């Protein structure tokens, strides 16, 4: 019941165009605290952890909200206080959470300001999918410099088209690129600007699927690859490969047998009849099937990233871990 309620409030908060998943998660947790009847810090923390887990379980792509929950819970655990009563402390913590969410909305402007210096006049920028911070940076750069932008389509969700529409509406020369045409276009590009779902402890990047291949192509072509990430997206996680991401499961990218069912270990070899030419015609693969069978996000290694722009400064990928260690260790 309570689990459902927190997911509902999280979904409702996400309706706000400006709120990203970590902030929505923090606000959902503060709402939960308002409802909570916990009488001690221990109880409250247990409830918070339970809610965070419930949120994470119900969301199809929990990585951003995990980063937010983790930050907020760690903050509450370490909050130095001399409040006389527990209820007083609780209201203070709620206030802190809400205040942070409000303050954090200014971070995108700060990042845009930092990244602006790296955009030279007349540059051609490649970006991927849809990211509010990238969009804001590009819009700001457009006011003072001439830029043109390639946006990848970003299948399966096609969010790149949204970016392209918004950029075109703002008068920025813009062209949508197929995900498979990145290597074709990279030579015309001066640098890559990438948003993020999370930046992990290695300095690597978790973002909409396709980011990794763009980073690899950019590296091969010797083009800078800049990631933009608000500091609440720093996530204490150390994935070693794509398959360490929490969104990965065994259903993703499983092989389909001709009968349409995923192949089981005991599966028989295809019989003669299934290879008959008339059979191939009856198999239809829809876009939905492909989307269901594919990942939403991928992981980009830190050595492919030139710099991470965040509200705490322009960092080398290694620099991110310093902040995470400061918060979660020691």
């Amino acid at each position: 019941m309570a689990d459902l309620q927190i997911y509902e409030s999280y979904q409702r908060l996400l309706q706000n165009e400006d709120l990203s998943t970590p902030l929505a998660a923090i606000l959902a947790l503060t709402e939960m605290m308002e409802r909570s009847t916990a009488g001690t810090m221990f109880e409250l923390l247990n409830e918070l952890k339970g809610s965070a887990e419930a949120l994470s379980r119900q969301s199809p792509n929990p990585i951003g909200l995990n980063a937010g929950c983790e930050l907020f819970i760690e903050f509450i655990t370490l909050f130095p206080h001399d409040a006389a009563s527990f209820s007083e402390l609780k209201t203070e913590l709620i206030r802190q959470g809400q205040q942070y969410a409000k303050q954090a909305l200014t971070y995108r402007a700060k990042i845009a300001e930092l990244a602006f210096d790296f955009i030279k006049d007349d540059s051609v920028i490649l970006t991927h999918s849809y990211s509010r911070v990238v969009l804001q940076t590009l819009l700001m750069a457009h006011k003072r410099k001439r830029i043109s932008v390639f946006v990848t389509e970003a299948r399966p969700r096609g969010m790149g088209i949204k970016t392209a529409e918004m950029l075109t509406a703002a008068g920025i020369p813009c062209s949508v690129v197929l995900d498979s045409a990145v290597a074709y276009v990279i030579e015309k590009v001066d640098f890559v600007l990438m948003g993020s779902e999370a930046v992990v402890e290695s300095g690597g990047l978790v973002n909409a699927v396709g980011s990794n291949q763009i980073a690899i192509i950019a590296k091969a072509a010797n083009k800078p690859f800049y990631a933009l990430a608000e500091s609440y997206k720093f996530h204490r996680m150390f994935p070693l490969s794509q398959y360490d991401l929490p969104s990965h499961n065994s259903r993703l990218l499983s092989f389909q047998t001709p009968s349409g069912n995923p192949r089981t270990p005991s599966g028989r070899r295809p019989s003669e009849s299934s290879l008959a030419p008339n059979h191939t015609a009856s198999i239809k693969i829809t876009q939905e099937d492909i989307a269901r069978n594919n990942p939403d996000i991928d992981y980009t290694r830190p050595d492919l990233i030139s710099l991470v722009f965040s509200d705490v400064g322009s960092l080398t990928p290694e620099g991110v871990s310093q902040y995470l260690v400061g918060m979660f260790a020691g």
Partner: protein
Amino acid sequence: MASDPQSAANQRIVEDLVSRLRRRQVVGSRATALETLLVLRQVVSKARFSNIDQLVNVIRSVGRRLVEAQPKEHSVGNTVRKVLHHIREEYHTASEPPAIETSFSIAKFVLQGQPRRQTTIPRSETRVPLKENDPDDPDSFARVLKPVLMEAIQDVFDELETVYDNISKNAKDHIHSDEIILTLGMSTTVQSFLKAAAHYRNYTVIVAETAPSYGGREMAKSLSSAGISTFLVPDSSIYALMSRVNKVILGAHAILANGGMFATSGSLLAATAARSYSTPVVVCAGQFKLTPLWNLYHEYGALDFGDPSAVLGFEEGDLVDKVDVVNPYYDYVQPELLDVFITNYGDHPPSSIYRLLKETYDDEDNEL
């Protein structure tokens, strides 16, 4: 304010350095740092101010003039930033009653990490109360603070004086017996580093002559007179010799925020050659060369050009009209090509330079 005789005197010494910087009469990162510091000391000692912001503004405006006079001598700006950082620090220790951290917020948590247990040291000394903007006695603030500030500036001075010794302190840990070291150009830092190592180790140095300044010839002369076995080679043979070299040691003109550096032209050639043989590249540089700037647009050059006649003299009259001659002072060497910076504040990989910068300067001064 111009009628004020004191600020007129300040004006004069600032203008003096500005014109010398512009004419390139003072060159080299340490020389310019020292000159800047001398001017700043004058300015602070003569300045009239009744609160910290006034003082900071005075220093900033002087700093801005000096930096604009010669934007390619990065250590000028660095010295100004460093002095500002020290002044703020002194001001905070002198003025604030040890602030008890009550305002802890998530933003602060992200920025500074876990809250530390407050260890408030009870101050035994009774200090003269520091009063800002005292209407009765506007100079009282300056009178109390000035001695502390002069001391702080003196500290920066001392650091500059001892910078070579401090860098060479651990030279023997970096250079081993029978190694072959390659270096180029005339860098006093590298020279003292190599000479310090020579007290303990027997090794060979190959010096590229570094045309067209031929600083390498000077370097080779100085090293061999210190008893180090030295070879002077033309620049064109750097790649050919690299397979036999154990280590490349370079000096820097400025270290940039991303861990790259500006260094004598030719450095990029040596660093690239070293990369293809996986030879370690070591950079010796004082902390005053740390620059909170990025090499934004021009990939390989520092866009600082010297006298073209060193490359193609006017005696070649016929040719001079027909070709463009460029003589860049510095190369930009990317952080990926460097392995370690040896500074007077310890040894650092290029990837942690940003942290050193954060500790050395205040963020608000990055743009003077």
